[in-house]
């Protein structure tokens, strides 16, 4: 079974600037950010984005390391996701 998940927006993440504080994880209203398994060059886990971003910029607003840039799609992008 799969579900279609719409992304109205997306982000870029400067993973090398991330210090792994995890503030963005609970800040994300649709909860589509998770922390990575691997670590960056400085040894920190960093956030990863999954389908469902709304482009609300909450992650950017709480990120102390200015890692996020937020975009909104003119037409939402659809992803098939196993449910």
């Amino acid at each position, binding site marked *: 079974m799969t579900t279609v998940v719409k992304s109205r927006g997306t982000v870029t993440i400067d993973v090398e600037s991330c210090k792994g504080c995890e503030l963005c994880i609970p800040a994300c209203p649709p909860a589509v950010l998770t922390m990575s398994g691997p670590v960056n060059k400085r040894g920190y886990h960093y956030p990863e984005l999954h389908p469902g971003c709304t482009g609300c910029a909450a992650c950017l607003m709480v990120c102390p390391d*200015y890692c996020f840039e937020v975009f909104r799609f003119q037409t939402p992008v659809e992803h098939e996701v196993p449910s």
Partner: protein
Amino acid sequence: MSTIPLGPVLDTAHAPGDGARVVEPKTPALLLTNHHHLCPGCGEPLAVRAIAEALEDLGLVDTAVCALGIGCYTSFGATVDVDLVQCLHGRAPSVATGVKRMLPDATVFTLQGDGDMVNEGLQEVLHTAARGESLTAVLVNNGVFGETGGHMTATSVLGQRTKNTIEGRDAEYHGYPILIGDLIAQLEGAAYVARGSVHNAGAVARTTKMVRRAFEAQRRREGFSFVEILTMCPTGWFIPTGEGPDYLASTLGEVHIMGELKADGQIRTTEELHAENVRKAAELDAQLARGGLED
């Protein structure tokens, strides 16, 4: 919690192509670099972003002069593209006074921590407010000396554990925290006084608005304007970074209540802000008990 099933990890290393527009730039234009040496989970970079955005929103960038205090945030003096006068610990309001009196058309602001403003330089900020200097003082308040590694300040709340209040701040032994915004709001020379926070996205947005209002008061030469910003300091609070926002809300945030303490000539005490929050919470509870939130 979200009901969205987690899909695959998406590419976030590259900006999307056509069909997408930037809604928020990664780094505020006023920052020469996004790199800084502050600890993971620190709230001070968010306060710096709020100031930078407020200046950009109001088109005041090319009038801005910062009188900077001494604390962790001092490192932003090197990376924020704003004319800077570095001050000694506690002295920024007086230095800003000298700057503003010589440059009446500049947008002059201080950035100080609670150790800098409320401990070392308490009389400076009070006198500057009382004189009604048309400048904006910004306080980043985390209730702790972050730079020395987590020691009690004059704003540490009762019960707060720091390196020199190991069992928690005890009123009988260590005295009570100072609600600096209330002191300033009572002074005739203060035109705008507000207390914000950066512990979640809503608070950041609200705080940015407060900083904007403070700068607007300065531009209208209404007098002294002041914005206190509660910031997380997980290092100085000895907690995991992810717990910073909740710890802020449940400790500092319960004492130093967010809100506008003086605006449009109206003074509201922290106690009144607290009572209002309690009333609003009770209303919500009542609505929920009646079967759901009303519009």
